[in-house]
């Protein structure tokens, strides 16, 4: 069979939601949250590196991350983890022929759970 060169330049089109169905929106959402969580992992490791610089540096850093901008960032991480994790369950189930015909309903149901959980965490984080 003929060679088929990869087209990585088209990767950006994965994130174009125009004229796409709900399945594609789930596909795009999973990629954005996956990339976001990967970036966060690196940031998290850098933050942990503060521990090596002694208690004062660490306490100073913790004081900084308690401001509302950092809290909003943390909420984004929680939202990404919930969306990615719950959508991952949907993909895991449907990928092996279970409930494949109900993937839209699964997506709507699980994302409803995600939204409720995000709102709960937002209230907890910003009112305590």
């Amino acid at each position, binding site marked *: *069979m003929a060679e*088929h060169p*990869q087209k990585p330049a088209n990767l950006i089109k*994965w994130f174009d939601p125009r004229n796409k169905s709900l399945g*594609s929106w*789930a596909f795009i959402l999973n990629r954005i949250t996956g990339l976001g969580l990967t970036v966060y992992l690196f940031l998290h490791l850098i933050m942990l590196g503060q521990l090596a610089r002694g208690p004062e540096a660490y306490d100073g850093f913790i004081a900084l991350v308690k401001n509302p901008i950092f809290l909003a960032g943390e909420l984004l991480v929680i939202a990404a983890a919930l969306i990615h994790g719950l959508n991952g369950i949907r993909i895991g189930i449907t*990928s092996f*022929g279970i409930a494949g*015909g109900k993937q839209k309903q699964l997506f709507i149901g699980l994302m409803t759970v995600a939204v409720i959980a995000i709102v709960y965490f937002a209230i907890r984080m910003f009112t305590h």
Partner: protein
Amino acid sequence: MTQTWTVTYEIFRKKGNQASHYDRFEMKVDPDEYVLDGIERIWAFNDRSLVFSHACHHSTCGACGMLVNGVEKLTCITPIRSVTKDGGVIRVEPMRNFPVISDLSVDMTVFYQRMESVGHQPVVSNGFEDSKGKFDPEDDLLRLSDCIECGLCISACPIALTTPAYLGPAVLAGAQQSGDLNPCVLDLVDSENGAWRCHSAYECTEVCPSHVDPAWRIMDLRKKLVSRRIKKFFGIK
């Protein structure tokens, strides 16, 4: 009584190595006509150099698949009313993920070869229940298979967009449908560019004009492949 709408067709044009562009044609149409009717009229009365593929006009041959306002459509069964409004625009482009031969016509050779190599049967027994795999080998009446090989699912697939080596939804659905997972077919479908490459966007099922449900078939194929591997591991035939 028929209505008359004024619509503008924006047609993708490309000849050889020339840069692509869009030609605009304002037309009076009946909104219940199909998108293909307008394209044929442009060819007949405005521009005889326009190249496009079509044949049966009733969604059996699968030749007239195109992008209509950014969505994969079989243009012979897509009413103008469903894609635009009076005074609106119908942008018509060739399918994605296939090399463009000229204007709206694409080269589907590799796709047809792949369909053949996985054992897709264009004509099946009447007892062959296309949806969800029931099969009656005793039935000797024949009918056309549901998949009309239009390629719309390949065009809509985000993975085919970046990985032309990916077999694509119709081919994998064809393998699932044929039911004959012989070693040659297994080599193709149980591989990096086979059933495991699908990333579950379900766009193939959305655009399929024949209710083949390729996404469901890919997932079912995976189930069969996993089952085979488990049986093989435990030495069960």
